[in-house]
């Protein structure tokens, strides 16, 4: 039973206040994109053993979507940040690097 801190309202709450939304920072591919790109957008998930940048919604709370950097093996939360961004903020990257030197996740490190 995780605890997460919503970066939008500041509440630290238990998992049941939140709803997981899968991998974060997916780039949307629409009409005109290749089959490959569209397939990867919808289905190719990184599914790492380790750092995972992912989406959450504070659905039993402020209702906002946000992102979390979470470890899928230890369940450590390295940081949470608002969803209106295309990559994690430096502070979160630094927090991950401090714990997991050499980590990478998609194009981020």
């Amino acid at each position, binding site marked *: *039973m*995780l*605890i997460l801190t919503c970066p939008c309202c500041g509440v630290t709450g*238990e998992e049941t206040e939140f709803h997981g*939304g899968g991998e974060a920072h997916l780039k*949307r*591919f*629409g*009409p*005109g*994109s290749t*089959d490959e790109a*569209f397939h990867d957008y*919808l289905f190719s998930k990184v599914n790492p053993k380790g750092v995972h940048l992912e*989406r959450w*919604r504070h*659905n039993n709370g402020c*209702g*906002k*979507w946000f992102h979390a950097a979470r*470890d899928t093996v*230890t*369940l*450590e*939360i390295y940081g949470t940040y608002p*969803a*209106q961004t295309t990559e994690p903020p430096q502070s979160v990257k630094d927090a991950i690097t401090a*714990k997991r030197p050499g980590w990478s996740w998609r194009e981020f490190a």
Partner: protein
Amino acid sequence: MSTRLANGGRLLDRGRKVDFTFNGKRLRGYAGDTIASALLANDQMLVGRSFKYHRPRGVVASGAEEPNGLVGMGTGADFEPNQRVTTTELFDGLTCTSQNHWPSLDFDVGAINTKLARFLFAGFYYKMFIHPRPFWKHVYEPIIRKSAGLGKAPDQRDTDTYEHFYAFCDVLVIGGGIAGLQAARSAAATGAKVMLIEQTAHWGGRAPVDGGTVGGQPVDKFVDDLVAELSAMDNVTMRNRTMGAGVYDHGYALGYERVGDHQPAAKGPRHRLWRIRAAQIVTATGAIERPLSFAGNDIPGVMLASAVRDYVVDYGVSIGDRTVVVTNNDDAYRTAITLKKNGLDVPAILDARVPTQDSPLMAEAKSLGIRVLMGHGISSVQGVKRVTGVGVCSQAGEGAVLEEIACDVVAMSGGWSPVVHLWSHCGGKLIWDETTAAFRPDVDKAPTGAKGEAFVTPAGAANGALSLGDVLSDATTAGASAAKAAGHSGGDVTAPEAEQIDEAPMAQVWMMPHGAGIKKRQKAWLDYQNDVKVSDIQLAAQEGYESVEHAKRYTTLGMATDQGKLSNINGLAILSDALGQPIPQTGTTTFRPPYTPISMASITGEARDERFMPIRQTPMYQWHVDNGAFFEPVGQWRRPYTYQKPGESIEQSVSREVKATRASLGMLDASTLGKLVVTGKDAGKFLDMLYTNMMSTLKPGHCRYGLMCGENGFLIDDGVVARIDDNTFLCHTTTGGAESIHGHMEEWLQTEWWDWEVYVANLTEQYAQIAVVGPQARATLEKLTGDDISGDALPFMAWKDITLAGIQARAYRISFSGELSYEIAVKASEGRALWDALLAAGQTANITPYGTEALHIMRAEKGFIMMGDETDGTVIPQDLGLHWAISKKKEDYIGKRAQARSHVTDPRRWQLVGLETVDGGVLPDGAYATAEGKNANGQRETQGRVTSTYHSPTLERGIAMGLVLNGPDRMGEVLEFPRLDGTIMRAKIVDPVFFDKDGEKQNV
């Protein structure tokens, strides 16, 4: 025989006698007794039968680790199987019965299995019953299953109440023995918020039984003072009868409080499940004594040495007159000494060790006149339902009997294992401690929490500290360091000085005697409840079941209700020996919650009966209830399926509603439909992305039917969109879609198009909505309003604000039935008033409230699709002939790209058509149209399926819609639909609009 002593029993209130029954026999104990102590006080040693061989079983322990003493307790709605006698407090009127025997505990036919034991060795069933094949299903398995289980299944509904509680603290200390108390004190001194929970009704654990002094005072005085001190602290909560059931991720712990078990007549919940979120957790869970493996160690009267001592000191119960103590460590001497001091006979202590000099406890035992035989053990125990004696042998040999000693109790001790369960639940690692021959927490590999921090600290015996002084000093440190990790420091509690009694090192004795032959190993029990013996583990190893998990599962070791609390370490030591590898290399099986079983009802908490799940109610719900509604669940709502009148069948009722609506006037509570308001400069652009059709061109005052797909291209929802003003739209969704489509919109707005100026609000519950449907709809509404709602003023697919029966309302001229129809939305708090007003106004027009089934039939008669019927998550709008609702002008909408994939554009996709049965009957729901031949897997080829099918009361025949291969091009063709009874129904492909094809009825 076992009996109550004249004196003693520190937990008893001898002034309060308590009556109870066991197997119908009326017995008496005292307040403070457990069922176990009271049974033993009444010479009831035999308490049950083992699982596999139906061996007689007596109480072996005094706490949570007890594998044998399980009874059925209570009667009727209060009955509960498998109650552990050692942890159940006695109360007046308690009734209990022993389990797993027939016809009686004393004479059990199943005990024949013990004669067959040599054939029922580990894994025998994997090798048996293979031939002939039908015999397994019809003969063998039914017999095996009949013999399964321990207690009886309850057969009545539980009438007790249960609840949850959410608690938050800095430091949770699990275990209220001296380690837990001291750790709590040490943590609390820092100002940290501390919660201390203890599974029994008493504080101090077993320290008061073991004795010794702390700070110069007897340990029980120390405990009393400490409890008083902690109770007075504002930042400390103490909770007894509350077991730490499990430790979960991020500092979540479960506390299982047995509020009412000991006082069943009291008001309040029976159990309370605490969901505790702690920054840090201290596991002060103590240690459990291990049995020794010798032949006949399962005969009633063979008990843990510490338990024998507990029964004397805590409950004033003597297990027997003559107790032989057998041990590999000093602690068991305390039992011998206690017995002797209480005037009971200890004919001998058989100590497997050969020490070079006497430890203080050995010396004390000898000084009391107890005969101590060093280097000796038990060759075998004599007796059937009760110990009658032991054969003494040399530990080093093969078990030749040197002497026989008559006795009625054997008190055994194989050393102590720290209780590491709660440490391990969430990933804490263990290390093997060679000196105590036990696994203890590897404090460098603790479970880690949300920030990666270690969040569990073991304390006292649970951390491998066994002497009083070591326990207190370890607990002091543990409490302070947990508090510090939780952000509180200072405090400075120093560990109190405890009397130090030097003990001689224990010896690792896993088999007694060391060279025991197969006959003895086949009688040396490891798991008492599941009947697993030393020979079984050895057989598993011999057959290659070498992993500890394989051996466990092959033999069922540790899989009984005690989850191997007594047997696991002994079993894996035997396994390691058989494999010729050190114990740590074998490792342990996984510790899983709960620590001891917890009631299912406590997990359920309040969520039972009417609170099982929310039932969402519209403002008119009570009217529906009062007027015979037959409900159907739709999401969390309950909607009237139909309003049955006395004497009507469901079908007749539905038919009446349809006919009345088509003939004159019907009305429907449509309040559950989703109503999402979308506003902002970019609202039109946003809806163009969400819907397949163009919404931005809709004029204020008008409505448009729209389709929504997911990014995968498949239909997810539909509904009518009304444009309120330039910047504002009201989107109707399906009942099930209200929350999900609202979430869908927010998701896209927040995570993809966050720079668009759009806000969305879910106003579903703000409005009650009533559909007024039928030829008399307008005339009836006109009775209630002065506003112009004529066809010109309020045409089809428009909306208008009006006053109706004095209530502000918005009327949408939309139709899902093909009739002249208005959907009237009013504030929810006025919904019932409007409903009543409409009923009154419509009386002359025979206004007929109708339910969801009539709604469905009427829409099917008109060929309107229904989400969830015509769609199933794999259907695209193009399949349903809804090309007109897909904008060709838009570059993009959610799902557009997906609809360009090869399978989605495949012309062979099945398409929507109407189906008219040749004989006028009703096609079965879900029927498939067959095609010629079979596929590569031998399955019949198909060419279509029924998506909706009804008897149409209007047309008085069966109508259906379906998806059919090339369907729209095959009008008039007849397809075959096999029914489940094997007969075939034939149906003609027709246009899906069965009724009023030109829409004359709705456009008046």
